């Protein structure tokens, strides 16, 4: 079957570029600026559309890895929160083991882990305790791969110096620690 999604993106881009942008009144800078941004946004979405599912899988893998990394040192401070993180990580493992898990379910699970991690970190703030600082440090460190994934995702917007960053397809294929 033909790839109608990619074709449709291309058609939208060409419509904007060939017909709509030239017809916009140059005296309306907001309309010109926004039409150009819509064109660039369509280009970004076209490049990313086929990667939404692999990105959701990678994001859940990385959140699961962060949860397991934090749960260990957190146990000495907040055993219930540590149990919760390990349970979330276990559930994420099951979702990832099933190749048919839908994208939405992967996203929901990743958001759930992030919410529990955030709640755990909130409990560390007021503690004057080296163990709390260790939890924070591990949590911060664990966010690096996730942030890089999103930097690579948005690299075409040009706001970030991504010279040091591997391309998105390499990051998606990289093993998760």
């Amino acid at each position, binding site marked *: 079957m033909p790839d109608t999604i990619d074709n449709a993106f291309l058609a939208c881009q060409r419509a904007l570029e060939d017909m709509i942008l030239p017809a916009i009144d140059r*005296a*309306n*800078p*907001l*309309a*010109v*600026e*926004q039409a150009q*941004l*819509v064109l*660039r*946004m369509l280009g970004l979405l076209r490049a990313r559309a086929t990667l939404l599912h692999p990105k*959701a899988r990678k*994001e859940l893998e990385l959140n699961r890895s*962060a949860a397991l990394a934090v749960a260990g040192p957190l146990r000495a401070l907040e055993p219930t929160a540590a149990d919760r993180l390990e349970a979330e990580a276990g559930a994420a493992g099951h979702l990832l083991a099933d190749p048919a898990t839908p994208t*939405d379910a992967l*996203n*929901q699970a*990743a*958001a*759930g882990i*992030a*919410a529990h*991690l*955030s709640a755990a*970190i*909130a409990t*560390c*703030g007021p503690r004057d305790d080296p163990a709390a*600082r260790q939890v*924070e*440090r591990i*949590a*911060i*460190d*664990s*966010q*690096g791969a*996730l*942030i*890089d994934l*999103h*930097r690579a*995702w*948005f*690299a075409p*917007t040009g*706001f*970030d*110096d991504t010279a040091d960053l591997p391309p998105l397809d390499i990051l998606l294929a990289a093993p998760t620690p």
Partner: protein
Amino acid sequence: MTVPAQAPSDIRNAPTEDFIARSRALFPVEAELDRMLTRKMRKRAEPRNPAGYSLDALVVCLERFLQDHGGPGQRIGNPRWMAGGASKIQIAFTLDRPANGGGTEQLDLVMRMEPAESVNTTSRLREVQLLDFFQDKLPVPKVRWLDDDARWFPEPTIIYDRASGVTRPTDQENRVSGIGQRFSPELRRELAPQFMDALARIHTADPAAAGLAAFHRPAPGTTESALLQLNRVRRVWHEDHSFSFPLFDAAGNWLERNLPVLDHATILHGDFRAGNFLFDEGSRRITAWLDWERGHIGDRHRDLAWTTTSSFGNLAEDGKTFLVSGLIPLDEFYHEYERRTGLPVDPARLRYYRIFNCYQLITTALCSAWRIVHLGKTHQDVLIAWVEGVGYSQAQELRRLLLEEL
């Protein structure tokens, strides 16, 4: 980061009075900012009304406003959108009116208004007070009128003189909001001293002078200044966020534990960088300092850390020297600042405000931007959606800085 599917009952889309009251109690901020943030939340659930913010509709508002303020015989001409910013609605127009000595005069004016909800919720009253305050100290637009309580316009609005000049060399690529703007070495030589002079004039102005009633003056010798800023960002995050971000929470913990003591209360521009000044390409003189919406009274290191943010500058032709705002090497920037102001630059407080500014920019780019695009609150949602990527470069910087501190 992953945004969970929004429940129809997401309270942040339609906050209750109880939610707003709890948010205000959790995160006390300056009175004027509390007024604006509370207004934002109370208006959030209002249905979209893009027609009410169209050029034609806003010109009708202008006509009504000028009928009530400008006297008889006035005529609005050539109303047109202005582009270049991401947070406010701006319309340029001319106003022909009877001159004092007879005949007519033509004013070149700008109407500057909050959209239904801005990526930065700020106060037009404060902006006017700062513009008035610096009228005889810096090139700034002269304010003509203020509709502070949105009686004539859909949102609080300023009308001020349109300054001449450009934000970037006309042969250079346009950058969104002027972020990362480039200047030739020749232009840098002319603009950099003016840039430093303006910063010194702002930071050495007396915040106790009359005219800044909408600003709280934090007490030196305390952490009040930093706490008010932290509370402001936390409140915005609390009211706007759609996802959990553990890095952000860890940063909040660190910022709260390390609140710096204020040594000297300073007037801050809040967004002092290329893109927020106009210059004349012929004379190479700065003609106006704009966008004072983030201005407040506080710690000068907040401005210094903001102005020296990596994404607001770029590398010189040698590929190594970082140019603050594309204009001046970093070391020279600090040296010149101390020489011109007599105020020392404290590396520890600079580090604190670097972390704080990342925290602020993440809130704007990933949290408020998502919410207002989701709810369709501005006249340029596609621009707001486009700049969301800024949040991840700031997150990477925040992570790096925090790992150095912890």
